[in-house]
Structure formats: structure tokens, C-alpha cells
């Protein structure tokens, strides 16, 4: 007994066995969290509605929630919302292919070749510090304000994180694993598919995740600056007509796409992690 009490003084108290929560209890807790989280948005909505109906601000500066909802449904049914969204997503998709491909090639080059890293990485590092939106005026001079401008600008936003994370991922491949591969006389494709990819994949994916978020940021910027269609243009249009409901609808849409992208990427990343744990 005395030994017990003396260790209790030195060591932190042993964790109390937590009773395993039943399914129902877990579900209840989750639901209550969602409900509590919904309080503030509902209050804000009520405040917004009240401010609009009491005319605290002119209707051009503060459209009522009902008007925003009506324009949302309107734009949705006329297909304007989806067509503009599709155009924006296409731009992001092409840029991810182009910029992601270029970033992957650069990253592999930097990861495998010490010489390439010595010659090119310092330049890359300095150029990567330049904010993407600083490039856009120059790009406009060279390629005009058409579709190439958007794809190039977003691609630039994608290249940097993909290159950095690919380089890092390859550099972090454990040396012993490569040695083992050499002992087993793996061919280069085997080394890549069986050793490099499995251990670099989480880092590569991290690069992709950053790239998607940067691409979405850059897309909205380019579309606000120079576009004739797309979700960003929807806002410019609403701004010019002084129809704030359009602007708010576009903001909600942009936020929704952001949430979906974020959730989807987090889900895939989670999957990858689980798979990784099983693999080793």
C-alpha cells in the first residue's frame, strides 16, 4: 500500500478507465455539437433579416436573406450558376494537370539529382517567393486576358507547392529501404513503385492538397481581375449592377466549393494514412 501511494506522488495519476461510450451516446453528443454550432449562424441570419427589414442600410447595400435565397434558386434553375461553376472548375482542373505535372517533374528532378538541385533549386526558391498575383500583369502583356492567362496563372500557383512537397517526399525516403531495394536488385520502376511512392505518397498528397487550395485562391483572383465568365465573374457582374444578392450568392457558392474540396481532400488523406499504417 505504501509503495503504491509513493509512486502515485511521483508518477502522474494513471488514466481513469473511460467507460466506452455507447453508439447512441456518441451520436447524441455529435448531434448536440452540430446544434450548438448552428446557433451563431442562425442568430446572424436573424440579425441580417432584422437589419434588412428594418432598413438599417439601403437595400443595395444589404439585400434581405429572402432575396439572396430567391436569386440563388433563380440562378440555379436558369443554369447560370452551374455553367459558371463548371467553367471555373475546368480552369482549376486544367491548371492542376499542367502545373501539377510540371511540379511533379521538377520535384522528381530535384529529389533524385543532386546536381539538378545544386544548379536549379536556388533559382526556384527565389522565384517561389514571388506571389503569384505579381506575375499576372506580366502574363497579361504576353498572353492577353483570354483563357491561357487563367490557366497559366493558376498553374503557377500550383507548381510551387507540388515541387516543394515532391522534393521533400523523395528526400525523406529512408535510406535503408533503398539499400534493401538494391540488395534485392530492384529495377528502377520497381524502386519507384515499391519503395519511393509508398513512402513519399503522404507528402506528395500534402503537396496536392496545398496546390488545390492555392489554385482555388488564384482562380477567384484571376476571375475578378479579368474574366467574362466563371464564379468570380459572377461577382464582378453583380458588383457592377450593384446587385449585392448576386455577390453574396457567388460568395456562398465559392465557400461551398471550398468546403467540399477541403472535406474531400481530408477524407482521401485520412484513407492514405490508414493504408500507410497497414502497409508497415
Amino acid at each position, binding site marked *: 500500500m505504501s509503495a503504491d501511494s509513493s509512486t502515485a506522488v511521483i508518477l502522474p495519476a494513471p488514466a481513469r478507465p473511460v467507460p466506452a461510450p455507447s453508439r447512441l451516446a456518441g451520436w447524441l453528443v455529435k448531434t448536440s455539437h452540430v446544434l450548438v454550432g448552428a*446557433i451563431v449562424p442562425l442568430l446572424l441570419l436573424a440579425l441580417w433579416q432584422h437589419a434588412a427589414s428594418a432598413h438599417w442600410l439601403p437595400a443595395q447595400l444589404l439585400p434581405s436573406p429572402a432575396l439572396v435565397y430567391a436569386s440563388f434558386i433563380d440562378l440555379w434553375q436558369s443554369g447560370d450558376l452551374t455553367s459558371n461553376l463548371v467553367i471555373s472548375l475546368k480552369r482549376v482542373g486544367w491548371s492542376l494537370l499542367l502545373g501539377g505535372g510540371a511540379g511533379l517533374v521538377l520535384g522528381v528532378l530535384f529529389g533524385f539529382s543532386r546536381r539538378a538541385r545544386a544548379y536549379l533549386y536556388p533559382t526556384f526558391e527565389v522565384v517561389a*517567393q514571388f506571389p503569384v498575383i*505579381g506575375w499576372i500583369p506580366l502574363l497579361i502583356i504576353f498572353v492577353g486576358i483570354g483563357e491561357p492567362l487563367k490557366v497559366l496563372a493558376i498553374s503557377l500557383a500550383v507548381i510551387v507547392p507540388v515541387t516543394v512537397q515532391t522534393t521533400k517526399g523523395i528526400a525523406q525516403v529512408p535510406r535503408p529501404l533503398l539499400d534493401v531495394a538494391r540488395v534485392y536488385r530492384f529495377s528502377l520502376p520497381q524502386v519507384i513503385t515499391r519503395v519511393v511512392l509508398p513512402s513519399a505518397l503522404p507528402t506528395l498528397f500534402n503537396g496536392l492538397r496545398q496546390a488545390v487550395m492555392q489554385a482555388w485562391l488564384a482562380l477567384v483572383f484571376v476571375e475578378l481581375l479579368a474574366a467574362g465568365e466563371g464564379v468570380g465573374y459572377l461577382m464582378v457582374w453583380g458588383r457592377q449592377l450593384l446587385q449585392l444578392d448576386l455577390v453574396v450568392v457567388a460568395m456562398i457558392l465559392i465557400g461551398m466549393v471550398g468546403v467540399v474540396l477541403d472535406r474531400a481532400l481530408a477524407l482521401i488523406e485520412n484513407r492514405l494514412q490508414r493504408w500507410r499504417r497497414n502497409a508497415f
Partner: protein
Amino acid sequence: MSTSSTRTALWQRDWRGLVFPVLFVALWQVAASAGWVNTKLIVSPLAVLQAGWQEITANGFAHALAASLARDLAGFVLGSLAGIAFGTLLGLSRWADRLLGPTFHTVRQISLFAWIPLISIWLGYTDQARVLFIAVAAFYPVVLSTHEGIRSVSKAQFEVARVYGFSRWQRLVRLVLPAASPQILTGLNLALIYAWLATIGAEFLLPSFDAAGVGATVIRGRSAFRVDVIIVGMLVIGLTGYALNRLAQRLENRLLIWRGPAH
């Protein structure tokens, strides 16, 4: 590690990184002066230098840069103060986190520049609008990192504070904030990068004639089709961002010196 590598003698440095930029600039100059390319589009590096010199001496470029930096700083300070306060609230109070967290994390997903049309309708093309936008950009990373930093304060330290009978305020100022400071500083560093991005973005998207700034200079160059001025502006934007980043890292290392060498 970094100090020893910066102290290495000149001839021991790795100069190979300079080969590519030097070749690139040389080729650029040769191509422009030999007339291989349209010199209206591809201006020679020397012309860029000349334009830079002219911008600095004659066109008040320093004034424009100072105006941009002042805007950047004002937005950064506002946004990060608000961010530290809000992040502390979320970190300290589980109830605040449950009430406000979901809203914050949803609103955060609205791409940063999507705020510009709304802000421009409410505040017009004014400096207040620009500073507010920069503050929004700085706010998010600071909230996230402050929240995370405060959550990672160990329970044991809290108990020590309780044993010493710290008041709520003392606990906050003498325990929680210092313990969370590494993460807060990381967030501030990130916020500085975002604030500079937002400064340039705001000058592009909320232009006005009376507002000087580096972004405004670039826009002027674009409308006058002066590629040299655009390149000067781009270089200054990039180098300023780089300098701010380096400065922040130096400051961070200096402020965190009490943590001792990293293991």
C-alpha cells in the same frame, strides 16, 4: 547549421546556383539587343534597370512602396491582434469553440479574394477597404495557430499555476500566452506572407487614382504598356515579400531563443 554555412569562405560557397540565373539574364540581354525578339514585349534587362532607376528617382517609387508597406502593416496589426484575441477565446473556452468554431471554419473556406466585391460595395475604393481586406487575410492563420498553441499547453502546467494560486489574468498572461507563443509566432509569420499577398491583391482589385502603391505602379505600367515598369514592380513585390519573410524568421528565432537549441 545556418550560421556556420553563412560564415563559410566565399570560395567554399556553392556558386552553381548562380549559373542558371546569370545565363538566363545574359541570353535575355543578347536576345533583346540583337533584335531577335520584339523589344516592345521583351525589354532588355538594362532597360529594366534604367526604368527602375527612373521610377525611384523621378516617379516617387519609394513613396509608393512606403504607402504599400504602411497599408500592409496596418492590416497585419489589426488582423493579427483580432486573430490572437479570437484564437485565445476559442482555445480557452470549450463553449466558445463549440459555439463559434463551426461558423469560423465554414467562413474560412470562402476564398480570400471573394471578399473584395462585398468590401468594395460597403466601403468603396478606399484605403479603409484595402486595410480591412488585408486584416481579414492576416486574421485566419493567426486564429488557427493561436488556437492550436493554446490547446497544446500541458495540463501539468495548468495545475502548477493553480497550486500557485494564479488569477485568471495571471494564468493567461504568464502561462498560456508564453507557452503558446511558438505557434502564435508561426501564425504571425504566415499572416505576414498573406498580408503582403493581400496588399498587392487589394491594390490590383481596388484601384483608385489617389492611392499610391507598388500595385498601382504596376497597373500604371500595364495600361501604358511599359513592360519595363511592370517587371520593376514585380521584382520589388517579390523582393519585399522575401525580405519581410526573412525578417520575420529572424525575429522568430530571436524571440524563441529561450527555448534553447532544437533537439
